[in-house]
């Protein structure tokens, strides 16, 4: 208790909540999930090294015919898409685009670095949502 460090709780708590803060948490979370997925992916694809039967067995296990696998595959699309879209936004900002220039801090403060790219943030998230809606249709409504 002495330190009062927030730990994981600090990813969503503390300070005034702005949307970028939640995207930060999601970006870290999806990053970890992608690393986990990558290891599973390599294991599954690597089964080909043990012969055709192993490969076909693995494909039967994780093929899209299985509704549970299909759900997780869709989740993977969500995770990849969010990480990619948000990553593009972060790279733009980190290379100095979209974030504005230093200004004299005259009240009310401009807070340019987060206010200026915010429309872009919403546009990207809406585009991602539209894409995910199409993907959901593709995954669940159409026959495999």
């Amino acid at each position: 208790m002495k330190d009062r460090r927030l730990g994981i709780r600090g990813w969503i708590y503390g300070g005034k909540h702005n949307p970028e803060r939640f995207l930060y948490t999601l970006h870290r979370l999806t990053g970890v999930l992608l690393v986990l997925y990558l290891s599973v992916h390599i294991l599954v694809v690597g089964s080909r090294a043990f012969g055709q039967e192993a490969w076909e067995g693995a494909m039967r296990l994780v093929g899209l015919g299985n509704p549970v696998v299909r759900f997780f595959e869709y989740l993977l699309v969500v995770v990849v898409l969010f990480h990619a879209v948000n990553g593009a936004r972060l790279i733009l900002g980190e290379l100095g685009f979209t974030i504005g220039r230093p200004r004299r801090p005259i009240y009310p403060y401009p807070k340019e670095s987060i206010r200026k790219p915010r429309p872009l943030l919403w546009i990207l998230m809406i585009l991602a949502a539209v894409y995910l809606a199409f993907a959901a249709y593709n995954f669940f409504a159409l026959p495999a």
Partner: protein
Amino acid sequence: MSARKKDPNTYIFKVFRYQPGKDEKPRFQTYEVPLLHPGMTVLEGLIYIKENLDPTLAVRYSCRMAVCGSCALYVNGKGILACHTALREFPSGKLTVEPMPNYPVVKDLMTRMDEFFDHHRQVKPYLLRPQDRAEIENPTREFLQLPEQLEEFLQFSYCIKCGLCVSACPTVATDPDFLGPQALMTVARYNRDSRDGGTVYRLKVVDAPHGLWNCHFAGACTEVCPKGVDPALAIQYTKRESVLHALHLNKLPRFRKKLAPVAPPPKPNRRPGIPPAPERTVPEAPAS
């Protein structure tokens, strides 16, 4: 605690109380503070508690006008300067006052800032000019700087080191060794200064584990900053600079930094051709 306060001129302070080494764990103590004048601040409320209700309350403050950065704390989960926030900003009349998170507590609302200033010192927060060390050690004249060059970093030099950005940063919450928004912002403040030539030295410190790239632009530092410094902007500029250096693009004329020159020595004589002053028309006033 009552659901609504009865008197509109009374504010209920729920204050975090904790003395490490003495108390087992923190507790909250409730005080009722009257609104003494319309512009009364949270800090004035805390001083009222200290003077009239409970002298054992520990709160750090100095200037009372948002210049020194001593009284940063959290009210209702939001980081503020206590001296810079009016009680009337809380229409519910209830204030939960806590010390800044992510810092060790000295007592009650006071937090230990050692680590914060340690990180600040690590990024060399002063003008570096290895190119002409003699001038820095024995200055002869000032450096020449244009107003546009001043605007490049002026916003970042308004930092009062209150530490609110570090308390709000989600990366600091899970990584104690992360330099923090304040130190990373200071890098941009000096690297963007045309009088400074130490960009490479500072990038060496921050372009490392627990440095620059642990920031994922959550923007919490900018949102919470009570002086409008915009640390997130400064950090993104430092990232851009780091990328330019890694790709050696900083040698291109477009990105190359031109060091501000030392001002030339003053000319001994006035401009030639100026006529002498005319004769006096009124007698000189006697020396008093």
